């Protein structure tokens, strides 16, 4: 297993996008016949690095050597020709084409598109136990089958260096075990497998080598036989101290929001949320920590009435709101700062005062009976712009013209209007500058003092620790631990988030 031939060697890779350094000084060595794990938090630059290795993006600096030979990978075709294959996190399959058609697409010259290809697919499928049927439409396949098809696609093209971008993110535990069995087979057949993940227990279970990335660069390597999850978590998260400061508790005894055993299933019948129970009191900020994609978005959408849970109940105050729809919930006093302000929070090409109305179109001061109260809305927008320090030329400016921080301040101001009883803040300071971040923190803290219940979801652990009265960790749709922000460290949270260590 410890063959010393090097399959891939990346030296000093750098990649800059306008205003962002995605990668710098990345060094990575992958030995042939091993599973190499690349770990790091969201935004650490793993995906960009993989796109560079697969020729989707071109590096600005650095060299790539494959099997000891320096290569230039300009397109995926170059990468495929050099034996590199990639399984994207979001599968690259056409639903309305068959397994065979998806497989041979772009590689028709290898085995044709008829019976020879069919035989080759059966051969690969049998060799690794994939169980693929060539003539079935891809839309009929489940997630795990699709992933096996993606891996088979890579093998069909003769790849010996196989990149898997967060392959377990979409799988349930049994499927993960099956995938790992497949990966071990691939490794034993002499392939190099690059496994990207942030789930530490999985990494320790499968990897032969580990490289850790943080903030766009590789910060260290580890030996899975000797290292611990805690050490890996520390490497991943780094060790910065929380900057938003905790204040004395304002938590009251009145419960504002209660979720009891809420369960939500996806279209394939698998649970996105499992038995989620939580309660938030007036004057309390409940922080939810978790690696992205573990059910945070679904939790928020369930509370907001965008999804209706399959089981469990949701109470706002004493009222059962489990089956209420979004507008009714909003009218009942839920404010909502969405995760992605461009997709869900704003109409980018509408003026600020129209954006002020969004989500509050049935309430004063925006509406008078069935009509929009134009002057009322405009006047209230003026108030928000002044109170929340939204730096804009005027309220007729389109939202697109504002910086991210000012857009977010407008949303915060809007959602704080009309005396909400509960605020759901999803990543409220993502992508905003430091000044706006501090202002938004201040607004949330002030609202808490005024008795608002807040559900705070954030990927920024410092923000969670600094603002929250209680922190719960979500992992694969379950709340797996409760922490006191006064005593917890980012490392503890990081470990719990990645399944490294429960509370």
């Amino acid at each position, binding site marked *: 297993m410890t063959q010393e031939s090097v399959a891939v060697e990346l030296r000093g890779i750098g990649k800059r996008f306008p205003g962002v350094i995605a990668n710098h000084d990345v060094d990575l060595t992958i030995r042939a016949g091993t599973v190499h794990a690349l770990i790091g938090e969201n935004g650490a630059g793993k995906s960009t690095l993989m796109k560079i290795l697969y020729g*989707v993006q071109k590096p600005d600096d650095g060299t790539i050597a494959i099997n000891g030979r320096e290569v230039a990978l300009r397109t*995926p075709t170059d990468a495929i020709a050099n034996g590199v294959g990639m399984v994207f996190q979001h599968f*690259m*399959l056409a639903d309305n084409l068959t397994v065979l058609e998806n497989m041979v697409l772009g590689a028709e010259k290898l085995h044709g598109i008829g019976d020879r290809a069919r035989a080759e697919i059966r051969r690969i499928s049998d060799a690794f136990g994939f169980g693929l049927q060539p003539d079935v439409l891809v839309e009929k396949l489940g997630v795990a089958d699709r992933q096996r098809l993606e891996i088979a696609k890579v093998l069909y093209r003769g790849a010996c260096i196989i990149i898997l*971008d967060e392959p377990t993110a979409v799988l349930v535990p049994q499927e993960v075990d099956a995938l790992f069995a497949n990966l071990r087979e691939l490794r034993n057949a002499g392939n190099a497998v690059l496994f990207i993940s942030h789930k530490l227990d999985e990494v320790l279970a499968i990897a032969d080598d580990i490289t850790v990335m943080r903030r766009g660069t590789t910060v260290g390597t580890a030996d899975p036989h000797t290292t611990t999850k805690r050490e890996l978590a520390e490497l991943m998260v780094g060790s910065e101290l929380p900057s938003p400061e905790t204040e004395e508790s304002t938590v009251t005894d009145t419960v504002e929001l209660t979720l009891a055993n809420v369960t939500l299933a996806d279209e394939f019948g698998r649970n996105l949320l499992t038995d989620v129970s939580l309660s938030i009191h007036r004057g309390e900020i409940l922080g939810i920590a978790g690696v992205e994609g573990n059910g945070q978005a679904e939790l928020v959408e369930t509370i907001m009435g965008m999804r209706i849970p399959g089981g469990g109940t949701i109470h706002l105050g004493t009222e059962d709101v489990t089956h209420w729809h979004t507008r009714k919930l909003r009218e009942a006093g839920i404010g909502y700062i969405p995760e992605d302000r461009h997709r869900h929070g704003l109409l980018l090409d509408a003026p600020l005062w129209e954006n002020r109305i969004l989500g509050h179109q049935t309430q004063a001061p925006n509406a008078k009976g069935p009509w929009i109260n134009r002057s009322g809305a405009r006047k209230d927008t003026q108030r928000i712009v002044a109170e929340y320090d939204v730096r804009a030329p005027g309220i007729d400016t389109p939202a697109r013209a504002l910086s991210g921080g000012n857009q977010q301040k407008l949303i915060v101001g809007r959602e704080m209007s009309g005396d909400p009883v509960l605020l759901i803040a999803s990543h409220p300071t993502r992508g905003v500058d430091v000044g706006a971040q501090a202002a938004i923190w201040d607004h949330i803290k002030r609202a808490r003092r005024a008795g608002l219940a807040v559900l705070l979801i954030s990927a920024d652990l410092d923000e969670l620790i600094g603002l929250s009265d209680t922190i719960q960790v979500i992992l694969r749709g379950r709340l797996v631990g409760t922490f006191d922000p006064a005593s917890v460290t980012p490392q503890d949270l990081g470990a719990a988030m990645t399944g490294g260590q429960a509370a």
Partner: protein
Amino acid sequence: MTTTTTTPSPVSRVRNAARANWLFIALGAVAAVSLVRILTDTNDLTSVGTIRAAIIATCPILMAGLGGLWAERAGVVNIGLEGQMVLGTWGAAFFTYHSGSPWVGILGAALLGMIGGLLHAIATVTFGVDHIVSGVAINLIGVGATTYLAEATFTDLEGGGPRQLIGLPTPTTIDRIPGISGPAADLADKHWFFISDVASFVAALTTKISLLSLVIFALVVASGWILWKTSFGLRLRSCGENPQAAETLGVNVYLYKYVAVLISGAMAGIGGGFLALVASSGFSTNQTNGRGYIGLAAMIFGNWRPGGLLAGALTFGYTDSLRLRDTHAVHSLLLLVAVALIAITVLRIVRKQIAGAVAMAVPGAALLVWFLSTDSVPRDFTSMTPYVTTLFVLALGTQRLRMPAADGRPYRKGSAG
């Protein structure tokens, strides 16, 4: 998975079932028409002459539909088919007149249609313009350019004028195929249930039929074969289903979209050429008269498949030809649609889809009452009745349509992953 099996795979069984289904639908349609013919004593409903007119009416629609198929399978909505067809009518007339050969004229029609397609490809693929906006622009440009070109090039020609050019040579016509045409025509004249209707169809296909019609039917088969049985077709279709995936596998998506839209324009152009050279006595401006849109509709009803679009185009063509022949036949059409709707109602009841059955039964009964209580369709309605009834049957009869997944969506290179 180590044992080899000899039973047919489930998919090939499904395919066979689908083929059998199409056959049953075709037979059922002929039987229904035959029944209505005998009930209403309207023998013209399936006379050789009617079927011949139907084939001539079908061909341009078929070519427009094929044009739509090529473009949309590559993910480009081509609503500019109408404009490309109009360009084709002028191209056919111009090149036929100057070369003396109608086949050169057809190539000219394809070329002009391709120019329209090129405009559409540049706008939608290279510049990412909304496909509908670009298509509508092409339609306006097509009509404007043709009117201008006709006035500029045909005014002083023999048989020409600012708005027309007549007296052009036409593509070869096959007069009769010995041993088939005669007996088939005789059988058709017996007016037997079902047999005579099929014979009438055979007679029309083998007697006094333009070679170009046969070429057009061959193009449908060829398009189906290229798109579904070659790697070129697979790549082209992958651009309409998931261009990002195609890109990660080394397919040059822009190139395939361009090729598809160019072929699409050429097909529509040939359809225009057929109109000018075969379906009428010569070129006149705006002679497409909405057939590009009808072709697009036939393709959509045909579920983006060549067999389906053939069925859709035949239905449109048949009802269109009835309208031109006599109003009594149009009146019979009411009964035909009523019978079809009631048949679907029965099918729904058997499948216990009560709401669907009611939705079919109500218009079916209404049409039946209309048919029984009148002797003819008012003159003002005759021109639109075929279209309305066709839309009715197709819209209600087609339940599950599946368009290419990325059809009409903008695609930018480098967006994968």
